[in-house]
């Protein structure tokens, strides 16, 4: 008789979620679903607010990637104003976004995923965390904290505070980079570059050990979506959005303002998160992935020497591997390296100290679509406004929603490989979670949670009754 296994909630991801696994009459998994159980009511809340307040408001949606929301929101505002930004403003926004990508990836890799990678999927759960990592490799743990601190310091230098800086505004930014912060960043660059190179070498060394996880943690062909620069270079702030097939064929390359022609949105009754798909292929065949792995699959080069060297090695492993979601970790590290090199490259640009950083205007367009790459993938803010600039309608398309189909397919793949009955051992639980963590989903675009999330596994019978329960606090 069919039964469901419920893992609720998933730990060490940003926000709240659970996993359910549907078993067939023989007790074998047929399908698994990743549920987001927190309702996001923000879009409704934005209606009636002035669009020029939106960057500061939407930045408070998420404590992990506020700069990305700021940037996408301000870019939508730029279009409503109908202005051309001063070059200095664009450079400063780019700097903030690289810092954002860097600090978010550092959190994901060093603190959320490294315990799984370094201590092993079957290690004692009481030790498979940041403290276990500190015990096993204290230097790596400290370096990870300092790497994240580096990104946060840049954001703080620009925004005044590292979380929720109301610094990016429609038309530009509020102020330039202070000299003393520039010096601090310059001094810290060699250390963070070395930390990242060490982490990349470490991850490459682990790939053989995790060959099975690489094959099972979401390895399947899908399209990938991300921004690219004019010459196909890795891009996080501007450019065209490019869809590429699993074999590397470019399927579409268009201005992000046309996102609705290419991205469909679907609500499922079992999750509060929207699911998106490539509209020309329909649902669910239009599955695609976004984020670090996708960005490295859609671009032709990283555009900086060290990152390009790693990019070549990454792609040298073949299309089969670059479609494996486990390699999100690898791609994340290469993006940290690219961000460091980009920051290094722009630091001495005199525009970073320019006084010409904001264009002023009134409402000149009734609608704007702002798009940038958030750490977890391409992000869209779409606003429609009244003549007075009040939001009539807002639509936010976040990366985690765009990875939803792929995350569901990933947990299904893992469940089919490892779950063989009612008993779900610790190591399998963690593999299911780790499969999701590879995407680094951010569900905190929802709520602030208090307290530690335990892991609850429930086996639910066909009548909805709990037939077995296992809890990990």
């Amino acid at each position, binding site marked *: 008789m069919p039964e469901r296994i419920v893992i609720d909630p998933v*730990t*060490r*991801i*940003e*926000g*709240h979620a659970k996993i359910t696994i549907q078993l067939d009459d023989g007790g074998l998994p047929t399908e698994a679903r990743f549920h987001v159980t927190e309702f996001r*009511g*923000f879009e*409704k*809340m934005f209606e009636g607010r002035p669009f020029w307040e939106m960057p500061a*408001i939407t930045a*408070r*949606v*998420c*404590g*992990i990637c*506020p700069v990305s929301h700021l940037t996408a929101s301000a870019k939508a505002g730029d279009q409503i104003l109908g202005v051309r930004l001063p070059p200095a403003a664009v450079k400063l926004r780019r700097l903030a976004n690289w810092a954002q990508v860097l600090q978010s990836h550092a*959190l994901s890799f060093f*603190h*959320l995923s490294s315990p799984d990678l370094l201590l092993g999927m079957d290690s004692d759960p*009481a*030790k498979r*965390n*940041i*403290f*276990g990592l*500190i*015990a096993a490799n*204290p230097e790596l*743990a*400290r370096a*990870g*904290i300092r790497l*994240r*601190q580096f990104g*946060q310091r840049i954001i703080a230098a620009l925004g005044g*505070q*590292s*979380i*929720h800086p109301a610094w990016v505004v429609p038309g530009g930014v509020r102020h330039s980079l202070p000299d003393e912060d520039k010096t601090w960043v310059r001094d810290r660059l060699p250390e963070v570059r070395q930390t990242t190179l060490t982490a990349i070498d470490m991850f490459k060394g682990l790939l053989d050990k995790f060959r099975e996880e690489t094959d099972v943690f979401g390895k399947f062909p899908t399209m990938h979506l991300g921004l690219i620069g004019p010459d196909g270079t890795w891009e996080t702030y501007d450019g065209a959005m490019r869809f590429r097939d699993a074999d590397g064929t470019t399927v579409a390359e268009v201005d992000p303002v046309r996102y609705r022609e290419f991205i469909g949105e679907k609500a499922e009754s079992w999750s509060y998160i929207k699911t998106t798909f490539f509209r020309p292929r329909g649902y669910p065949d239009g599955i695609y992935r976004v984020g670090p792995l996708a960005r490295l699959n859609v671009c032709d080069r990283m555009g900086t020497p060290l990152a390009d060297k790693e990019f070549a090695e990454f792609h040298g492993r073949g299309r089969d591997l670059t479609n494996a979601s486990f390699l999100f970790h690898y791609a994340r590290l290469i993006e940290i390296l690219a961000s460091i090199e980009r920051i290094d490259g722009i630091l001495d640009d005199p525009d970073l100290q320019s006084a010409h950083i904001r264009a002023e205007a009134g409402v000149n367009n009734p609608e704007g679509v702002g798009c940038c790459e958030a750490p977890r993938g391409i992000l869209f803010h779409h606003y429609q406004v009244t003549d007075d600039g009040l939001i009539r309608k807002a639509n936010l398309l976040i990366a985690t929603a765009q990875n939803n189909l792929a995350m569901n397919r990933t947990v299904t793949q893992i469940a089919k490989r490892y779950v063989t009955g009612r008993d779900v051992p610790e190591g399998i639980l963690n593999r299911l979670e780790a499969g999701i963590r590879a995407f680094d989903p951010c*569900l*905190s675009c929802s*709520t*602030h*949670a*208090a*307290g*530690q*999330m335990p892991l609850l596994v429930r086996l639910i019978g066909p009548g909805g009754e709990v037939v077995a329960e296992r809890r990990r606090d």
Partner: protein
Amino acid sequence: MPADVLVIGYGNTLRGDDGLGPAVAADVARLGWPGVRVKVVHQLTPELAADLADARRVVFVDAAIGGEPVTAVRIETRPAGDVMSHAADPRGLLTLCGAVYGTTPDAWLVTVAGADFDFRDGLSPTARENARAAQSSVEALIREASCA
């Protein structure tokens, strides 16, 4: 002159009274007391461990669902724990600080009862009243540290 005290108010200000921690911390910051550093954050993240390591006393301020209007309890490290999720807690961060930097400050958690955690910008009347009491509690902890 007060000792080096760090006040961290955390919570999501778009979830109504969950913004109590940031609101109280912001009020403390406005006092401009020397030797007092204030951080207003959405959530507790690992790099805050470095700020903890530099402080003699840390006061975390967080919202609570119901219960006493204001509580202040001393917190300790724990043998092990998972600090790294959206739900990182003060004890986890304190433990991380000790593990990474080999030192921990005297740490307190001030909780402030909220009444409405819906999608909203701003505090409920109950929360505003509790915030005033919480600020007094935080100020007392700062003064006490300066006398220690």
